């Protein structure tokens, strides 16, 4: 079954091509949505199939069970399979169980070619060339950089694939309803399907270069989808901002790939993870290897919107809401988390050696970002803006988990976050859809009466995000917070990790507060709303014209129904995944697993504390915002200074504008002037000379027959005279 998983990206790619072709046929645009949904659903089917039945055919034509599912459990047994020869070997010899499927030679740089005689298939004899010598062909290269187009499967890959295709199909179904009647619908779904292609390639890649291909692919799709409403200047600016900020991160990522090749001789994960520099713990490492995790980290921070490269994500909400849910909440922004988790063996080995551990840096950046973005979300009045900053904050949690050596906590939170944040964004999209594009929550109130289903769906997402006990967010967040505390108390983290654990607890309180602040403002109190100016095709929902001027509930199909699985997932996915150790087992059966200190007591205490904080945060939000009270304004009046700073989002955008954007802009202007006045003018003067000459001679070419005749005569005469008198 696992062999079939390689088709997942290509089905999505086919869907993208078909949707792209539909852009040219306006009458068939409606088909784009179903095609996109089907291509992602097919991928989901294949993913579930390979997840439940991870067998594949090895070189000896035997059906072999993938190493992460031995004896029916999702945990690593003492058996592992060599990814290249596909032979079953002992786990002691092979640390990271994974299956590499179909490694086709893709690119090679340098190295010497290996020749082999061409054998005739029928006779079995070597084919002779014209000179009687056997013909030879290049079969491979030795040395140099070789990159395969191969797919790498282990527990981490399977988790990511399930999230991408599963949540992706639900969001795509919702998008069919959301984008109904939009003129660019085929373009939208082409980009969505292309995104799924790139994202699945990213998580299935068996080397860093193929991963980078997917990485850039999702970046491109993100750019295309943020700038989907290209008529709006803000959307275009946001798309460019996202692309450029990500390029800064990618620069670090590229350097990291180069260093990997320099020190490990390959970019294949199976080679890197089994390289003696990585497997020998505690040995001295070259400086270049020490730098690898730091370089990769920069790329991860760019993609996953962490300090200092987080500024693009809040602006990215300019895209259509399903895009915010899929690309900018559930999947693409978690690529950075995935990268760090995937390269965990390298992070881990450097962690043991370096004076400043890369994992500590990851933890600090994650913890600080979580709190930082959480505080901004407190005062944001933008419906999607709150969730955008909340996404930054939750991604911060994931990085804190990675930094606290709890890869499974980070990935667990990634999974549950994908459920509830997708749900929150989609319900926010429903509200926005109902109000024709209004995003300012200050103009909203009591919408629960108009949209009861959306109200309770968003409630399910909110309790999960807030971390109310026994919801999904509660379990995953708790694993991370407990890991940070455990690392501080029992591990080698020290006081720093205890501080980070405290930050994470404060953030948990803030999360509960801002989530329910939003929910109370939008859905409770007096009914009030202002309609925006975006025109959706109301007729498609079966509404009369006079109904179009007030908010209405979304239709069940295709909009509210796909949210039900997300709501159920937000509620119960956490307890199921936690109690049955699904994520833990899968992570243990992958390269991402790390040995970390674990303490039952601390986990219990953190559960109680974070559960209490979540409830306290909700209660606090209720005091200020339930049924519209004026307490919030009074409190804001009292804390004018801090609230001003938070409303201004710490003025980070302004700071970057002053320090980076404007100086660059001025330099650009100066360079432009120099270019125009010096270089352009000089080059143009060379052009002027022949032009002047042409202008003078042009009248002689009148195009008249007599003129040509005279010219010829004059020429002949001149030659004749020359011959007579000079020679």
């Amino acid at each position: 079954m696992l062999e079939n998983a390689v088709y997942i990206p290509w089905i999505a790619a086919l869907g993208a091509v078909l949707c792209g072709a539909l852009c040219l046929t306006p009458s068939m645009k409606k088909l784009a949505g179903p095609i996109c949904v089907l291509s992602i659903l097919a991928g989901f089917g294949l993913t579930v199939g390979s997840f439940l039945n991870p067998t594949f055919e090895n070189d000896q034509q035997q059906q072999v069970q993938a190493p992460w599912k031995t004896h029916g459990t999702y945990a690593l047994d003492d058996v592992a399979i060599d990814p290249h020869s596909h032979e079953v070997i002992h786990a002691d010899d092979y640390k990271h169980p994974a299956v590499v499927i179909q490694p086709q030679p893709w690119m090679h740089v340098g190295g010497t070619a290996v020749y082999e005689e061409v054998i005739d298939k029928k006779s079995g004899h070597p084919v002779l060339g014209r000179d009687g010598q056997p013909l030879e062909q290049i079969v491979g290269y030795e040395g140099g950089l070789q990159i395969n187009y191969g797919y790498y499967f282990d527990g981490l890959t399977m988790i990511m694939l399930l999230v991408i295709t599963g949540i992706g199909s639900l969001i795509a179904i919702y998008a069919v309803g959301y984008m109904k009647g939009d003129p660019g619908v085929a373009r939208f779904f082409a980009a969505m399907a292309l995104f799924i292609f790139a994202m699945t390639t990213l998580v299935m890649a068996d080397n860093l270069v193929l991963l980078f291909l997917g990485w850039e692919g999702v970046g491109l799709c993100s750019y295309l989808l943020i700038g989907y409403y290209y008529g709006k200047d803000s959307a275009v600016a946001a798309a460019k901002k996202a692309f450029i900020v990500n390029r800064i991160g990618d620069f670090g990522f590229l350097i990291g790939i180069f260093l990997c090749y320099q020190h490990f001789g390959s970019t294949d994960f199976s080679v890197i993870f089994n390289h003696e520099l990585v497997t020998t713990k505690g040995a001295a490492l070259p400086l270049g290897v020490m730098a690898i995790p730091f370089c990769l980290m920069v790329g991860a921070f760019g993609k996953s919107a962490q300090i200092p490269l987080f500024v693009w994500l809040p602006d990215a909400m300019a895209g259509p809401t399903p895009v915010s849910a899929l690309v900018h909440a559930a999947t693409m922004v978690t690529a950075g988390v995935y990268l760090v988790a995937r390269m965990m063996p390298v992070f881990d080995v450097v962690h043991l050696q370096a004076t400043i551990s890369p994992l500590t840096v990851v933890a600090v950046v994650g913890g600080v970002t979580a709190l930082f973005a959480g505080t901004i979300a407190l005062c944001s009045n933008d419906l999607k803006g709150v969730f955008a900053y909340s996404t930054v904050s939750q991604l911060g949690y994931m990085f804190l988990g990675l930094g606290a050596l709890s890869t499974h906590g980070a990935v667990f939170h990634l999974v549950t976050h994908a459920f509830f944040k997708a749900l929150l964004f989609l319900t926010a999209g429903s509200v926005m859809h109902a109000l024709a594009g209004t995003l300012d929550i200050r103009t909203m109130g009591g919408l629960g009466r108009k949209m009861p289903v959306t109200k309770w769906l968003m409630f399910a997402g909110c309790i999960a995000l807030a971390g109310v006990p026994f919801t999904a967010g509660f379990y995953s967040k708790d694993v991370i917070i407990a890991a940070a505390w455990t690392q501080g108390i029992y591990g080698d983290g020290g006081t720093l990790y205890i501080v980070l654990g405290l930050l994470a607890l404060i953030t948990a309180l803030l999360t509960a507060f801002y989530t329910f602040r939003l929910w109370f403002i939008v859905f409770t109190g007096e009914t009030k709303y202002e309609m925006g100016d975006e025109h959706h095709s109301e007729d498609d929902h079966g509404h009369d014209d006079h109904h179009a001027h007030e908010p209405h509930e979304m239709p069940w199909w295709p909009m509210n129904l796909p949210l039900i699985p997300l709501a159920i997932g937000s509620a119960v996915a956490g307890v199921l995944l936690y109690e049955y150790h699904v994520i833990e087992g899968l992570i243990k059966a992958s390269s991402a697993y790390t040995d970390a200190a674990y303490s039952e007591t601390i986990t219990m205490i953190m559960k109680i504390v974070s559960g209490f904080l979540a409830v306290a945060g909700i209660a606090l939000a209720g005091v200020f915002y339930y049924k519209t009270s004026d307490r919030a304004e009074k409190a804001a009046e009292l804390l004018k200074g801090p609230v001003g700073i938070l409303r201004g989002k710490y003025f980070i955008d302004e700071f970057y504008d002053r320090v980076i954007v404007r100086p660059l802009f001025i330099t650009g202007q100066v360079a432009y002037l120099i270019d125009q006045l010096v270089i352009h003018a000089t080059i143009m003067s060379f052009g002027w000379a022949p032009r002047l000459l042409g202008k003078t001679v042009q009248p002689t070419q009148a195009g008249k027959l007599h003129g040509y005749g005279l010219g010829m005569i004059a020429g002949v005469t001149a030659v004749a005279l020359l011959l007579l008198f000079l020679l």
Partner: protein
Amino acid sequence: MLDVLQPAGLQLAALSQLALSHFLMTAAILFTLGLVGFVTRKNLIVMFLCTEMMFQGVVITLVAFAMFHNNVTGQTFVIFVLTVAAAEAALALGLVVLMFRRRRTLDANAWAAMQG
């Protein structure tokens, strides 16, 4: 070449004995007439006939040299040239007819597509 124009043996009494210079003079006159006609006349057919006249001027020189040098190469060449000229005349007149149909005039100035 100047003494070709004023040869020492050019006398009225010797008209029966044609010298090379006579032929060459005739050829030069024909050629010049054609040349002047070509640049002064506007009618396409006349211009074409003028070029034919220039042709004949050249042909006469070739024949004359062939006769006076006892070398038949020149005469052979003339036959060849006449054949080509005949073919070319047919082609050129055909073109002139086509051009007339396009513009309803034979004025050469009506055609100036190559103006720079």
